[in-house]
């Protein structure tokens, strides 16, 4: 009996380990392949030059800049609105059917296919508001796409701050808003940043939402204003991989490498900020 349970445990551990391996190995392989094939393409010219000879040589600088603009714009739009909505939902809204439905709807919006957001952005920003295909339209579309992620993770972060802190603060005569501002928010920052990181990564990597709203196939110059079109890394990668024949493998993997590095770099910055906050955390 005892030996038997021991064996069951070993089998269980084996399968748990196998499942973990099945996740880690593909991710590791993707990283290795992209680094192996992409790294040789990386040099100063590749990062700083515009694409040349029908994008078969030259660099990807406009696409990098475009993606940075789009991600920044999306965050500028989504973080404040998402945070305010999260504060309302977690701190002010009453626990009734309507608010439960709203919360559920927001969680589910995170699962809507990104191409739907792309079409929505096309209809609303490009056509209705007449922003045209522009950085503004693309940023707003990406912003709307990542709003559910920002709201949901921020709400969870706010709700994980112990209720007792709120009671203590209120019992000392602080108002509800003061309590949120001085006690709840500072302790929820790491969780909010996590949500922002997830949103950033998604905004940087998506192709469909920018396809109709901003992305240019090829632009010889950098955008001058938020009403200009821009190139972007994911769309550029799509274009050189499927739309243009005979693009060197080095350039394609180099582009993928830059996109990956950009997302990882953003995550790294956020992780460092989060770590600093956590060290300051006093409970």
């Amino acid at each position: 009996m005892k030996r038997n349970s021991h064996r069951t445990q070993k089998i269980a551990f084996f399968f748990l380990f196998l499942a973990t391996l099945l996740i880690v190995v593909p991710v590791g392989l993707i990283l290795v392949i992209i680094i192996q094939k992409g790294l040789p393409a990386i040099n100063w010219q590749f990062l700083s030059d515009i694409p040349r000879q029908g994008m078969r040589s030259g660099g990807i600088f406009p696409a990098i800049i475009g993606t940075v603009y789009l991600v920044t714009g999306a965050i500028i739009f989504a973080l404040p609105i998402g945070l305010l909505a999260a504060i309302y939902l977690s701190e002010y809204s009453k626990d009734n059917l309507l608010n439960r439905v709203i919360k559920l709807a927001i969680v589910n919006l995170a699962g809507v296919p990104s191409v739907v957001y792309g079409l929505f952005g096309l209809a609303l920003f490009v056509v209705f508001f007449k922003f045209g295909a522009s950085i503004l339209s693309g940023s707003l579309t990406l912003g709307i796409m990542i709003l559910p992620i920002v709201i949901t993770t921020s709400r969870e972060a706010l709700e994980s701050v112990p209720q007792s802190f709120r009671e203590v603060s209120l019992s000392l005569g602080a108002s509800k808003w003061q309590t949120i501002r001085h006690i709840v928010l500072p302790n929820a920052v790491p969780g909010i940043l996590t949500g922002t990181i997830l949103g950033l990564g998604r905004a940087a990597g998506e192709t469909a939402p920018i396809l109709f709203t901003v992305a240019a196939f090829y632009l010889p110059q950098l955008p001058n204003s938020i009403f200009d079109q821009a190139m972007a890394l994911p769309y550029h990668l799509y274009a050189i991989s499927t739309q243009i024949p005979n693009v060197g493998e080095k350039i394609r993997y180099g582009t993928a490498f830059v996109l990956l590095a950009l997302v990882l770099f953003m995550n790294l910055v956020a992780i460092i900020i989060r770590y600093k906050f956590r060290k300051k955390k006093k409970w």
Partner: protein
Amino acid sequence: MVKFEITDLNIWFDSTQALKDVSMQVLANEILSIIGPSNSGKTTFLRMLNRLNDLNPRFKMNGDVRFDGEDISNIDVELLRRRIGMVFALPLPLPLSIFDNVAYGMKMAGIKSKKHLAQVVENALKHAYLWEEVKDRMNESAFKLSGGQQQRLCIARTLAVEPDVLLFDEPCSGLDPISTAKVEDAMVKLKEKYTIVLVTNNVKQAARVGDRTAFFLSGELIELDKTEKIFTVPQDKRTDGYIRGKFG
């Protein structure tokens, strides 16, 4: 002088009645101990006084509660809570430094002068008998203090707002006997300036510090009298049974 005048108070959480027809007074500058088994409504009563029950969406109440003659539902809730301080059952420092914990209430009330804040913080810590232990480490996290020190910090934090009334919700339930004695000493001395309502599970503590003692059972006020009377000649045999430890 009457501090709180409570008339026909009923409290429900959804359909569960927590307090039934409670009418009583809390007098100025007394320590009123409230004893009774768990679920007898003691803490609900206490949290009603500073309207902390309002945070619970299931909370309903009727009846008349007057603080210095004024209906508590007519008083601005932040102002009411500034005048009625509360010390909770567990030491609950805010995730701030020792100094900021004590200064928190005043800062929220809009006091900015650093000199004034430092003075009030020092006084409050002295009144809670904590100053000597923390004066050199004011910028450390409050979580680095021991449990007993944390609870005295919470008392200092409450005093710093300069309330009229102090509510203690089983303040010694997590403390060792020496820390308990220190907190009780502090309470007795604070009586000169403050009205104190003390909810306690420790019958002996009520006997030691209370001027008057109220006995709650299943949401009803069974008996309220001078502490000596409650502990020597209680009128109700349920009170007698509880303080003798026959149930509870």
